[in-house]
Structure formats: C-alpha cells, structure tokens
C-alpha cells in the first residue's frame, strides 16, 4: 500500500506534464500571468484581455489561415514558477513567442530564459528596465518607466506649472523608477521637491505622511503606485484637507481606482497610454468588448496585454514564425495602429514608443486631458535602457 503512494505521485506528475504535449496545428503564443496570490486581479485583467485579442485575431483570419492559440499558465507572481513555466511553454508547448502578463520579477526571469532559448519575448505592463536588457529577443509593449516618469514631470512642472512638489513613492521597482524619472525632469524644469517619502506595498494608512505633506505646502503631489494604495492616498489626502493637484500613473488606470476612492478621485491626473476618449477603432473595440466579456470596465493592465497579442499577431502574419525574422521585423515597426493604447510609433531599444496621454478623472470617469508628441518627452533618452 505504502509503495503505491509513491507510484501514484509519480503518475500524477507525469499526467500533468503529458497534458501539455500537443500537435502543432495552431500557432501558439505563451502567456504567464498571476492568477493566484496577491496579484490575481491584474492577472485576471491581462488574461481576459489577451483572450479577447486572440478571439479578434481568429475572427479575422488567424495567422495566415491557421488558428492562433494562447497557452497560458499561472505563475503566482513568483520568479521560480515563471522561469520553469517559460521553459515548459518553449519546449513542451512549442510556443513561437512568449508574452509575460506578470510583474517585473517573474518577467525578468522569463526574459532571461527566452533570450537563452532565442525565443522572441515581450512584457506587457512590467516596467523594470532590465527586462529588455536581457537581450535582443526581449521587448516591452508597455511604457518604459523613464518615459512615463518624464511625462509626469513635464506635465507637473510645465503644463501645471507646479513649483513645489511632494513625492509619495511606492517602494518597489515600479514606483521607484517612475519617481526617479519624474524627479529628474521636474527639477530640470524648475520645480522644487519639498517632500519625499517611500511607503511599502500594501500600506493603507497615509494620514501621517499626508499631514506632513500638508505642512510642506506643495502645489502638487506625485504618488506613483498601484490603485489599491492610490485610492487610499487620494481619499485620505482630501480628508486631511489637501487641496493641491494629485497626480499618478498607469497603475491608477483602473475603474477600481474610481470606485474605491469615490469622489476624491475626481480631479486626479494620471500618465497613461490608454485614452478612453479616443475615437481610434481598436481602442473602442477593446473597451466595449472587454466590458461585454467580463462585466467590468477595462484597465491599463488589460490594454497592455491586448496590445501585446495584437502586435505579436501582426508580426506573425507579416513574417511567419521564424524567430530571427520576427525580431528583425520587430525593430522596424512603425505606426502600428491595431492596438488599444495610443498608436505605437516605433520601438526604441526594443521598448515601445507612443504618444503619452494625460487623463483626468472627471465625473467619476477617466477623460482625455492632454497628449504629448514631443520627442524629448516620449522618446528614450540617450544611454538609457541598455542595448
């Protein structure tokens, strides 16, 4: 009896692996995303959006007639799982392109493996610069942090003419990299940083920080982070009586931000690439159909995943499944319109470059406010983002 337990365990493992072996009748792209754990909400958004894009592609001819198939796994936002799953996707599921719908730590782990295996890879919303630095096979669809932070800096210091700025930074790679870029730009444009503080992910009590900020009397507070914390920051800021501008980033770009922050969300600016007021057909298609599919309004995380699949499909349709052809073509893409976020103008150092949007929350909705086309704002600076 006892010996059979070991055998049973062996069988279970083998079965689990066997399920993934399939015949090559479809064109497969791999997708890892956190479906369990603390990041499950973002995982769900990105997976549903990716599936939406796959359905769109298949309704419009697939990949040169063959069906596009999304093979996705839950990485629980852990780099070891991401690493093992990437190998599984590449070797067992035989995907031709890898997409990471996960955070920076798992994405970086996946990127390294894709580079070694010479499989084209792109991250969706993860911002860590090292993701594309892994090598020539690794790309980024989402906005690079230096660009997004810089856009925020221009908007705050130039457009809003804020002279005194307070920084309330989420202490992870996302918040820190955005804040760095923002700070550099804002100072260059003549603003002064009157307060700076980092808080841990998951923090819910900001009143002490906000009271200190109130004493520093800023014109604007820039608080890079995710919407859970941001909703608390914004509503507590209004509660303690702060009347200055509040500014955030794409992490706020979710209907949940407005739901949780209620009326305090009104008047908040964010840097993002999803323009909900845009009349671009793909943007509207995404927004409508995501809502139809999930009964929830779309967010930026989903938009990034949608765009990744759309772009990859376009590339596959154009040059087929040869990895070298894919990455060569990838670098030459210009003015890609079939995406939900603002058209992708080009790829610089393998990161997508697009016009940057400023949205504002008005009447409990995200609305268009401003858009940047200037090269010094939206292009990567010289020397950043590695090779």
């Amino acid at each position, binding site marked *: 009896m006892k010996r059979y337990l070991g055998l049973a365990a062996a069988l279970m493992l083998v079965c689990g692996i066997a399920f993934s072996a399939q015949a090559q009748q479809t064109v497969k792209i791999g997708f890892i995303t956190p479906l*369990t*754990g*603390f990041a*499950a*909400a973002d*995982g*769900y958004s990105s997976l549903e959006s990716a599936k939406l894009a796959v359905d769109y592609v298949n309704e419009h001819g697939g990949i040169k007639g063959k069906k596009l198939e999304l093979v996705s796994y839950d990485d629980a936002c852990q780099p070891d799982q991401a690493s093992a799953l990437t190998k599984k996707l590449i070797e067992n599921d035989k995907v031709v392109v890898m997409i990471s719908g996960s955070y920076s730590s798992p994405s970086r782990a996946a990127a390294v493996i894709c580079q070694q295996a010479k499989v084209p890879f792109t991250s969706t919303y993860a911002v860590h610069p090292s993701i594309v630095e892994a090598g020539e096979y690794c790309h980024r669809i989402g906005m690079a942090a230096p660009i997004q932070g810089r856009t925020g800096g221009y908007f705050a210091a130039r457009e809003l003419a804020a002279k005194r700025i307070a920084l309330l930074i989420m*202490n992870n790679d996302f918040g820190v990299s955005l804040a760095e870029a923002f700070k550099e730009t804002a100072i260059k444009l003549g603003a002064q940083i009157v*307060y*700076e*503080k*980092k*808080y*841990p992910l*998951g923090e*819910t*009590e900001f*009143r*002490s*920080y906000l*009271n*200190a900020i109130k004493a*520093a009397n800023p014109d604007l507070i820039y608080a890079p982070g995710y919407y*859970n914390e941001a*909703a*608390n920051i914004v*509503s507590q800021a209004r*509660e*303690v*009586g702060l009347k200055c501008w509040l500014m955030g980033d794409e992490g706020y770009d979710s209907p*949940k931000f407005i*739901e*949780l*922050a*209620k009326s305090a969300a009104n008047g908040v600016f964010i840097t993002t690439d999803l323009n909900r007021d845009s009349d671009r057909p793909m943007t509207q298609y995404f927004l409508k159909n995501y809502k139809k599919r999930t009964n*929830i309004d779309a967010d930026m995380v989903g938009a990034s995943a949608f765009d990744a699949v759309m772009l990859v499909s376009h590339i596959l349709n154009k040059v087929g499944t040869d990895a070298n052809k894919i990455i060569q073509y990838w670098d030459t893409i210009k003015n890609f319109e079939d995406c939900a976020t603002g058209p992708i103008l080009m790829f610089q150092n393998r990161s997508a470059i697009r016009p940057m949007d400023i949205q504002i929350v008005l009447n409990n909705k995200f609305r268009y406010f401003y858009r940047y086309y200037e090269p010094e704002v939206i292009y990567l600076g010289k020397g950043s983002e590695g090779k």
Partner: protein
Amino acid sequence: MLQLLVDAFVLGCSYALMAVGLNMVYGLLRIIHVAHAALYTLGAYVGLYCLYHLSQSLWLSLTLGAVFPALVGALMYRIIYSPVLSAPRYVALIAGAGVFIASQEFYRLIAGPYPYPFNAQFKFLSISSSHLNVTETQMLIITFMMCAFLCLYLIINNTNLGLMWRACTQDMELAASSGININLIIAINFIIGSALAGSAGVLMALYRNSVFPTMGAMVSYKAFVVVVLGGFGSIPGAAIAGILLALAESLLGMVPFFNLPRDAIAFLVMVLVLMFKPKGLFGR
C-alpha cells in the same frame, strides 16, 4: 498635532481589535492563531454581502460580520485546533497557516480578485472644527473599540465566566479538575475573539472602502507585534500596545525624508522587546 493623535488612535483601534483575539487564544491555548486573519477578511466579505444583498445599513453588516466569523472561529477550533492540542505547537501553527492560505484563495474564487468598495450608509457623530476633523467612520471605530474593550474587561474581571476564563489561562488541567467546562470556555474564547476580528474587518473595510482577498495579511503581522508589545495574555495590554504602535508609526511617518522601512522598524522593536522585556508592557 491633535489630528495626528486622533488618526493614529483610530489606526491603533484596528490593531488592538485584531490583537486581542490573538491574545485570548494564546492566553488560553498557547497557540499562535495564524488563521485569525482569515476571520478578519471573512467579516469584511460577510459585511459586503449584506450590503449588496440584504440592506444598505451598516449595522446589519457589522452584526453579521461579527456573528458569522464568530461561529466559523469556534468551528475552526473544533475541527482544526482541538485535534492537535497535544501535538507540538508548531503543528497548530502550520495547520493555521494552511487554513489562511486556503481561505485567501477561497475568497478569491467566490468573490473575485478585485477589491470591492464598501458603500454602507449610517449616521453617527462626527467632529469638524478648524482644529480637529473626526469623520463619522473614525468616531465609530473609536467608540466600537472602547465599548468592546470595556465589555471584555468587565466580563473577564467581574463575572463568573471571566473568573473561569482566567482560571483556564492559568492552568487548564487544574481548572478542568475544579469542574470548569473547559470546552465551553475555549469555545466562548474563540467566539469572542473571532467576533472582534470579524468586526474589525467590517470597520476597516468601511474605513478604507475596500474589500479584497488578501486584506488580512499585513494586519495580522502587525497584530503579532502588538501582542508581543502588550504582553501575552493581557487584554488591556493589547489595547494600549495597539495604540502605541500606531502612534509610533504615525510619528515616524511625519519625519520628512526619513526612508527607513516602517514595518521593519516595528518588527525590530518587537524583537528587542522579546529579547529584553519578553513580558511586554503588561504581560503575566
């Protein structure tokens, strides 16, 4: 400054409500009740369900958000902890951890991974003056916490039930042989502690306007710190330590450009207390 004190006090109330449940379980059974946080989150979700399906009133949410976790807590004791009381204590620890992991996934599967707003209606006192602003929610939390602790204190010190409870915390076997129904005492212990955790969940859901599956995690870690600071097994200790911790965190938050990790500092204080004054402030 007064505003800071009040805000910190409110935060401290939430810590205290969580810590007292942990303290009660530890005082009686010497188990570190890791699954306590699962009851906090359960209270919030039960309250949320009330809001969406039963009534917009906060009072019903609060009541059910306390009662339901209370029952689940007692059940938890029966099914999970009582079989392992005689085993080494890390077994109860791991069992509790398993329950906590499973519970987070359970909430996610039932309610979805997204945070929900907690739109409850209620009328309560509030203060708004130029010097001090205390919102209705804040007043509610403060009042609730003080009432809860007062009741608890009275029960423990002035009733027969409390006497029996105190006897059990000192020596279970002796208490049992004196004729006390220890199973009943333990059950009541879990019921009260879990009810407080559940109501803390509802109140914090209201305060932060958000309910999500992993909301119990950080609160429970802070609760450990509070339990240590206040002293194991001491109810007033949990209250005072909770408020002190919140106060210290808030003061630290005020210092500009000071970027040392707030949580790590709280735990450093905990380690130092454990090493040099393990009984905490009021421990026995």
